[in-house]
């Protein structure tokens, strides 16, 4: 399983833009306390095999791209982030049976408490853009994880910039909680 994870990371670098979260598919994803992020999508076999069903969650994660990244301490959306979110909005319009929880995350350079607030700001920033693009607010909910759920675990900027993110986690059916 370890080998798979490493392989996927390399694929990810080569694939650039639509780089997805290897951790989500790796061993132990959906383990204790993973919360709304762990919804059982994307088993290892379904990754990188192309020809995904365009209305599938895997397509949303892989092809549309489920996340946008932020600069240090910022919750402002970059042009790239806006482009990604516009595509997410289109996909959500085409697939009205899905709802989404938008997770806001921070890197580890900050206190736990400040990062919770910062994650809330980032998630709201992505949510507000989706709503402005026509997605009904009732289909969206935000959650902050602060610095509690990094996807990259090194302590350098190349990991930090992947961790400063808002992730749109979709699910078929209504919102809970």
């Amino acid at each position: 399983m370890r080998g798979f994870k490493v392989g996927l990371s390399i694929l990810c670098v080569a694939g650039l833009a639509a780089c997805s979260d290897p951790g989500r598919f790796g061993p132990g994803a959906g383990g204790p306390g993973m919360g709304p992020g762990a919804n059982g999508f994307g088993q290892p076999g379904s990754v990188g095999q192309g020809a995904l069903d365009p209305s599938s969650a895997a397509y949303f994660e892989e092809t549309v791209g489920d996340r946008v990244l932020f600069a240090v301490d910022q919750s402002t959306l970059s042009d790239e982030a806006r482009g990604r979110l516009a595509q997410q909005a289109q996909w959500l319009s085409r697939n009205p049976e899905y709802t989404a929880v938008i997770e806001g995350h921070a890197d580890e350079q900050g206190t736990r408490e400040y990062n919770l607030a910062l994650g809330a700001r980032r998630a709201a920033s992505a949510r507000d853009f989706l709503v402005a693009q026509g997605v009904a607010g009732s289909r969206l909910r935000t959650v902050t994880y602060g610095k509690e759920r990094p996807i990259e675990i090194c302590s350098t900027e190349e990991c930090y910039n992947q961790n400063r993110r808002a992730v749109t986690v979709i699910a078929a059916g209504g919102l809970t909680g």
Partner: protein
Amino acid sequence: MITIRTIALAALAALATGFSVPATAQDGPLRIEITEGVVEPLPFALPTFVAEDGGAGELAADISQVVAADLTGTGLFRRIPSEAFVSEVTEFTSTVTYANWKAINAQALITGAVTTEGDTVTVKFRLFDVFSEAPLGEGLQMRGSRESWRRLAHKVADAVYSRITGESGYFDSRVVFVSEQGPKDQRQKRLAVMDYDGANVQYLTDGRSLVLAPRFSPSGDRVLYTSYESGFPQIYQMDVGSVTPRPLPVPAESMTFSPRYAPDGETIVFSAATNGNTDIYRLRPGASTPEQLTDAPSIETAPSYSPDGNRIVFESDRSGTPQLYVMPANGGEARRISFGQGRYGTPVWSPRGDLIAFTKQNQGRFHIGVMRTDGSEERLLTASFLDEGPTWAPNGRVLMFTRESSGAGGSSSLYSVDVSGRNLSLVDTPEAASDPAWSPLLP
């Protein structure tokens, strides 16, 4: 099992006993002024307490060990090894031959005895100022259940510390914290409580839900914390003795975190994020909805009350970077108090009221620091890759905090440091640990 409840106040009451002595030496030379900055620890002799019955031997040794560890752990005292002794203490009531203790340069002598009767343990102790050749305070006797033996030892150490330093002690206290397992990207967190020295760990939650930043009530009977039980961060209250959650009337539609009790033990202050904006709210006892104390588009979080309950210190990035502010407890105009370089967070008002401890991030390093409540006289006590979240010992002399190491294998530990910046020490916990919060001194 923890036995806080079984040790009722009456059972632990310190009783002056028949062997009391004149307290004339209290103003004698055996004194540590903590504020002067002790460089050389005060040497003391603590002969293993006398076991007064056949069943008390092991307990007497254990209690002696814990008393000595409490004292030496402060960095203010040094125990003279028993191999150096030129006399023994075989009976608690025997007369002290001061010359024998002067000969080994013991400035303080602590003698004690332990008696057991069924489940009851009685500890007696006396403290002597060797160079003044006089007792320091009266002999004391304490009683508790066998299970509570560590608390009895901590009580003895608190009394010794208090008599010599003039400060109240902090050894008979507990710490609630988050016990951690697993790598950074799959970390499992459980709420746990332990004695201040890491003994008697008890888990309060299982690892199913992410939990963060617990806080003790001023009476030590309850904790507030943040849990992702619902999938979203929400504050919860738990009764520590019965490990029973107590619901709070906090609106379910907003994310709530950073809770803390007011000194009254009933009012709660916390942060709530609504539409991405985090402000500070207050929930008064009996109220069905919280009141909003701050209203700004910036982040306002990490509130902490002054001990008199009149003011709240908190963290805000309204100036562009996170800084510390003080406002009246009812809300209203806030005054910025942090002006040094870097970013400030997690302010905590000292139980003595004189200082505010904080986390500071500057030039890629994290520090635990203290400043006066007007922001003057800032002092940084620690530095590392990531230090955060200080909590005060009940006497306001020591801080405990989280230190996390860097990199893929990074993990968290608890450390304590004297408010002087000396005596940085790792707190021994069974697993990785974070977010400590110190209880008051137990009754």
